[in-house]
């Protein structure tokens, strides 16, 4: 039994070291593109400004957010975003009341539908905002979600 625990412990450490090693080598170029300023912004406006580098944003009813009006658990709120705007290349999801509102940004190729379904944390009742980029222009939609128990504590 002791031997088993020892073996497990060494294996885990070895695997971790291996993973960190390969992780540091591989995604260097890729990680550079991670939108740090947007993800560290503390208000939705700041986050969107960082994301779009100040470019204008307009409302569009061709961007759809599907989510329940009431989320029972703010730690995991199902959200579906889809866009009817041709040549949609990115979909970004924000939650207004989070300490850091920008949650996720998806870069889409023409091989996938402009559709993502995911689950986000919500710090409290407020709007979920979807920002969509197509042909160099930016569009948004928002939906208010009531949250029974917050998820950013």
């Amino acid at each position: 039994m002791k031997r088993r625990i020892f073996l497990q412990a060494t294996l885990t450490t070895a695997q971790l070291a291996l993973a960190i090693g390969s992780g540091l080598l591989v995604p260097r170029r890729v990680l550079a593109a991670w939108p740090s300023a947007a993800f560290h912004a503390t208000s939705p406006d700041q986050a969107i400004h960082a994301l779009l580098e100040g470019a204008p944003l307009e409302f569009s009813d061709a961007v759809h957010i599907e989510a329940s009006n009431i989320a029972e658990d703010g730690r995991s709120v199902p959200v579906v975003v889809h866009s009817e705007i041709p040549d949609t290349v990115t979909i970004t999801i924000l939650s207004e009341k989070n300490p850091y509102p920008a949650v996720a940004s998806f870069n889409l190729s023409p091989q996938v539908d402009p559709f993502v379904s995911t689950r986000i944390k919500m710090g409290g009742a407020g709007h979920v905002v979807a920002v969509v980029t197509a042909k160099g222009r930016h569009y948004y939609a928002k939906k208010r979600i009531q949250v029974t128990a917050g998820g950013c504590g």
Partner: protein
Amino acid sequence: MARRMTHKMRASATEGGALVKLLIQHPMETGNRKDRVTGERIPRHFIREVHCEHNGAIIMTAFWSWGMAFNPYLSFRLRKASRGDAVKVRWWDSKGVTETIETRVR
């Protein structure tokens, strides 16, 4: 394989395309939570980047923050796909850990 993570991915054929559903096991720690027993802050730990491939070509990438739910769920739709096509998802987290999940369209 000690502490092997378990991930789930399914790619189901639809009319001409495929619907991919993916569940990754990951704590997605915000860095705001405290350990209930020790009172110490739990360090931020989250998946930063996800790449999705269809038959070897990257068809979607995603940047995530710690605002994604723990054990993140993602679903997306391939416009053109056939049964047997390879679907692969690779993620990298903030500690440099990376994992690859593979399946075929059914």
